[in-house]
């Protein structure tokens, strides 16, 4: 589910995570192929509930109340709250990645793609902060499997950023840890804002995010120029 949304640029990292996520789900594979509207409503309700009330405070009941569905609809699709959240997390991550991929699609250069992709991601958080919080903050409370999904998504983002090495211009060659550090730092700023309940102003972070991402590959001058360009 949702994996089809991943961008072409991230295709490299997809194979492994697909296999693992298929194993992790306790629901029968037959049901997974059906992208039923009820199932999607439950998943969205789960993310919103976690995004507004936190993971521990969210129960199957909370999700049903939000969606107006019966218990049966929930248990037809999911074994329990944890399994439902895991699927919801995957949906949430896939949507964030899809938004980024759409934002990047019309651009040619690495920097253009990064600006478009990051910008679209931040717009998505501005538009649906509760869903974003349900994914980015909620994942920390949902156990080891959820944290694995988080790590995989961050790896995909780092792989995309590291495409800068093959870019036009004269990229410097930062150590291999650089893209991971960039993703971790940007993630920390977003997580910190979401966890204090911020619901807006994410787009305004784009200039500094561009600075941090461009700096190790293209140097301070290019990074400053990029920061200025993104402010417009």
């Amino acid at each position: 589910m949702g994996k089809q949304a991943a961008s072409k640029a991230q295709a490299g990292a997809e194979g492994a995570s697909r296999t693992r996520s298929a194993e992790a789900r306790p629901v029968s594979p037959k049901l997974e192929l059906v992208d039923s509207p009820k199932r999607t409503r439950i998943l969205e309700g789960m993310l919103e509930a976690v995004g507004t009330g936190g993971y521990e405070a969210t129960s199957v009941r909370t999700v049903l109340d939000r969606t107006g569905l019966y218990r049966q609809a929930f248990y037809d699709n999911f074994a329990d709250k944890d399994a439902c959240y895991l699927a919801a997390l995957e949906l949430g991550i896939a949507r964030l990645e899809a938004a980024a991929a759409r934002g990047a699609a019309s651009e040619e250069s690495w920097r253009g793609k990064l600006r478009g992709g990051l910008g679209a991601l931040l717009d998505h958080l501005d538009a649906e902060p509760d869903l974003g919080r349900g994914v980015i903050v909620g994942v920390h409370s949902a156990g080891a499997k959820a944290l694995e999904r988080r790590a995989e998504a961050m790896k995909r983002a780092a792989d995309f950023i590291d495409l800068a090495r093959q870019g036009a211009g004269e990229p410097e060659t930062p150590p291999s840890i650089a893209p991971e550090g960039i993703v971790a730092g940007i993630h920390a700023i977003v997580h910190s804002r979401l966890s204090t309940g911020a619901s807006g102003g994410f787009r305004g972070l784009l200039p500094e995010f561009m600075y941090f991402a461009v700096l190790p590959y293209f140097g301070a001058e290019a990074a400053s120029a990029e920061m200025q360009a993104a402010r417009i």
Partner: protein
Amino acid sequence: MDSPQTSNPEAPLDRHELPRAYIIRSQRERMMEAMVRMSAAKGYEATTVADVIEYAGVSRDTFDEMFGSKEDCFLAAYDAVFDVLVAHVTAAFEAASGEPWPEKIAAGLGALVELLAMEADIARMAMVEATAVGDDARERYRAMFTRFTPFLEEGRTYSGQGEELPADTARFAVGGAASMIFDEVRAGRGPELKRILPDLVFAVLMPYLGSEGAEDEMRRVTREGG
């Protein structure tokens, strides 16, 4: 109370004669330690007050007297753990005060990594469980970043870029390093945390110095470590 035994500082003290304030402090500390150990072993959610009092060897009444809830106890333990981490890093940073800023950062990170590697339960609790607990704990997790900010902000002057650097540079740097530590601890590699010290040094210095400047310091740390 004025028996000769208690007034003699050399004489072994009977537990019942310890000042009440001391007993309370040590009970409180035992429960906080129990919380660190249990939440590291089982995860915060699975840890119960019963686990904590059994490990600490205190009664439920004692727990209720000192903590309003399980979360309350966790937060108290978290604050205590964090004070230790900050004090340790501050001491290392200040001990290197004659050195250039990148080396002070490397010294502070080295001390942090050393302590976390030695104390696997503390690492697990401070880095992983704390983000799982709830809004109050997350607020503290944020606040902990702020306590490291002054060390980092010297980098603005050192790099000569001052206010030209993005406003969130310190948060980017600390957050990035914290996230890398988080990943190691989550994956059970906490005890080998020293291995990623060069990476952490790079991640913290890079936003201030760019790739080349950060890599120089990273190489220096790698040489010294090896």
